[in-house]
């Protein structure tokens, strides 16, 4: 049980929630969030957007039942956090490209922060549907930020000389972005999403087919080498 410090709207349907929680968590990991008893049945996976002292910051889009409930919470309310879960990102100290689409941009904030502290050089491509958010946060750490609203962010990618590429967003966008780097020397990582029941590896509900067989997004991922998941 954790206490909500702040929960405010930052863009259309996009909310930022600060939660008091002393966990040690890595960029790319997520928590299973729950603010109800037994209904909805599942907790909802939300990535770590950022950390600030004892606080963890989530940025989420209101999609359905669960996120609707999250958006109604007020500071002082309790929320259950299960986590941090998942593998998280390997950090590189060299030339990094971050590519985010929609609310997939959220986890890039903490990633950029971490990469920066490892001395990486960062270019970030951020694609939005309606309205930009978190651009300033990422600008704090990225050397170059290219943002686009309404188009395909993959059309704007011009920095192909990278050591590591981190992609998070709709699957189709991730695949397209990966294609751009497929024949370069960059290591490309994609943050995958699947519907989750348990979030801890117990149900096999979040299965993803990879080059190396079935994997669980919740515990083997959510970060995968793009070549392993976009292999077909």
């Amino acid at each position: 049980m954790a206490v909500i410090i702040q929960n405010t709207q930052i863009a259309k349907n996009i909310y930022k929630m600060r939660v008091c929680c002393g966990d040690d968590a890595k960029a790319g990991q997520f928590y299973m969030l729950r603010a109800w008893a037994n209904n909805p049945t599942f907790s909802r996976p939300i990535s770590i957007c950022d950390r600030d002292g004892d606080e963890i910051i989530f940025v989420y889009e209101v999609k359905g039942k669960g996120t609707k409930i999250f958006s109604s919470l007020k500071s002082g309310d309790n929320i259950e956090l299960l986590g941090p879960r998942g593998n998280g990102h390997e950090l590189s100290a060299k030339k990094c490209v971050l590519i985010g689409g929609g609310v997939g941009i959220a986890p890039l904030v903490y990633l950029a922060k971490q990469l920066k502290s490892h001395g990486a050089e960062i270019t970030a491509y951020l694609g939005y549907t309606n309205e930009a958010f978190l651009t300033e946060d990422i600008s704090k750490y990225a050397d170059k930020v290219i943002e686009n609203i309404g188009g395909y962010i993959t059309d704007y990618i011009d920095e192909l000389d990278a050591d590591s590429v981190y992609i998070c967003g709709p699957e189709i966008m991730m695949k397209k972005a990966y294609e751009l780097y497929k024949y370069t020397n960059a290591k490309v990582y994609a943050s995958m999403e699947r519907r989750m029941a348990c979030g801890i590896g117990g149900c096999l509900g979040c299965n993803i087919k990879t080059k190396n067989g079935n994997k669980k997004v919740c515990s083997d991922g959510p970060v995968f080498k793009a070549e392993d998941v976009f292999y077909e």
Partner: protein
Amino acid sequence: MNRLSVDFLGINFKNPIVAASGTFSFGKEFAEFYDINMLGGISFKGLTLNKKEGNEGIRVWECESGMMNSIGLENPGVEEFVEKYTDYTQNIDTVKIVNMGGNNLQEYIKGAELLNKVDFDILELNISCPNVKSGGMLFGVCEESAYEVTKAVKNITRHKLMVKLTPNVTDIASIAKACEEAGADALSLVNTFQAMAIDVLHKKPIFDNIYAGLSGACIKPIALRMVHQTAKAVKIPVMGMGGIYTGTDVLEFLMAGASCVQVGTANFINPLALKNIIKELEAYCEKENINIKDIINII
């Protein structure tokens, strides 16, 4: 004194709470959250003779007070399980139940035979599997095929045999009796209910297989009725399940005639669910000053 201990097939269970097959993997993931050896037992992820990749597409879907799954029995296969048995079961010091299904009689027989190589407490036979040879009809939906598969496995296995019934039937008691006659040592029920969900936005079924298995609190009232009917129909012990989330739910199933229960979906709502349920039952027995076995089958 342990007020929660129960006897089931001559095996001493620390308490009547067993993790349900397919919802607890082989225990490791939950061991991170609490000492899983406090459980009465664990029914491992369902095996089939051969390794299975499981189903494509959406595998879990939420519904009112429950969920649907279409995992498709993804599992390493009996062979690998037997080979790596010590890996799978090391550190597990509670009743071990191995759950196994099959697509035809031969698979069941071969699987059970292979499992004779390793030691565990109970073999749980999942007969909610489609019998490929008879057009995909589930073994568990008619007396004849339920009898046949139970008998065949009973003949070959050296383990205690618990047959797990499907609830998708008109008359659960008659299927239960058929299994008892065929030599089942115990019964467990219910498996998931065949169900459906539609993605109205995209105008297509949610699941690639169209239908999927329903579990969770929503099925509890039907599951409880079936456990009651079954316990009244047979002499062998019954392990009840279906939508158990709380200690009170457990009491209902025990009173209805189950000697133990399995808990599945609740593990996804809270990984500590089974631990919490055990604590609740301890408090109940303390308060009522009874042993849990006193309430079994009193209704």
